[in-house]
């Protein structure tokens, strides 16, 4: 399984759920997992993260096991069984 942890506005969109467990599949990537996650949701969520051309948006950081996926292989980053993926839209102001 892969644990998807959700924060901020995304959590509110998902009815307050703090996390979702997704079955892991051989060859999984961050992009594939997000697509599978979206397929299981009734409302559009991942458009907050990735646009129609599979480009990452900038308002939410995606961390795989504590590392921003922009420092890995972005949406092509391989995911292993037991990994933790976090979607966090930080507060930008001060």
């Amino acid at each position: 399984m892969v644990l998807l942890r959700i924060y901020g506005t995304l959590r509110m969109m998902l009815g307050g759920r703090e996390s979702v467990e997704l079955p892991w599949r051989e060859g999984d990537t961050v992009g594939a997992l997000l697509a599978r996650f979206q397929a299981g949701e009734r409302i559009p969520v991942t458009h907050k993260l990735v646009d129609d051309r599979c480009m990452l948006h900038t308002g939410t950081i995606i961390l795989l096991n504590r590392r921003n996926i922009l420092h890995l292989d972005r949406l092509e980053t391989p995911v292993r069984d037991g990994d933790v993926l976090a979607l966090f839209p930080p507060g930008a102001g001060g």
Partner: protein
Amino acid sequence: MEERYARQRLFWGDERQRLIGESELLVAGVGGLGATVCQIMARAGVGRLLLVDDGAVALEDLHRQSLYGECDLGRKKVLVARERLQAINSTVEIVVREERIGCGFAVPGGVPLVADCLDNYEGRFALWDALPAGCRLVHGGVQGDRGQVLTLVKGESQPLNEIYAGSVQPAGAIEVSPYSVFVIAGLMCSELCHVIGGSAKLLDRFLVVDLVDLSLSFLDV
């Protein structure tokens, strides 16, 4: 020890009070978060405060920036902040720099602890780059009814600009409630006092605060 600290000494003891009194803190940005952070830390009896900001008080600041009032409109925030903080606690040494934190910013040598109260990623990344090895950064951010606090150690933790890689400043003014900055600033000061006491609670760990559903969550980095 002074009578002014009697109530907090009952809470955290004389040793913590001594450490706070000997500590030095750079507050980067004295806007929403920074104005309250430096006020709380001055009241707590921090030894030396270095305030850095180039902004002037504007009407749109007054709903959340606790050191300023209508009589301060147009004045430099660091100068007003110094006046108010000295009136609150004259034993605190206060140094100000009217400077925008951006590329080329230099942290004065020997500063061991920094509160990131900035309102933009460019400044935050420049601040991180400028920190000397071993310097501890307590980062805060706020937007709407949400915010986060995180402690990092330069040279040991993941760099702030790697954690926030790809983050781009939202266009236009950032929405923020009047009370969320006080909540996040209060949590930052709690963490600052823990860091000074050698017991950081949020080292390499975000505390994510959501006032919409009144939740606190952790996110390790």
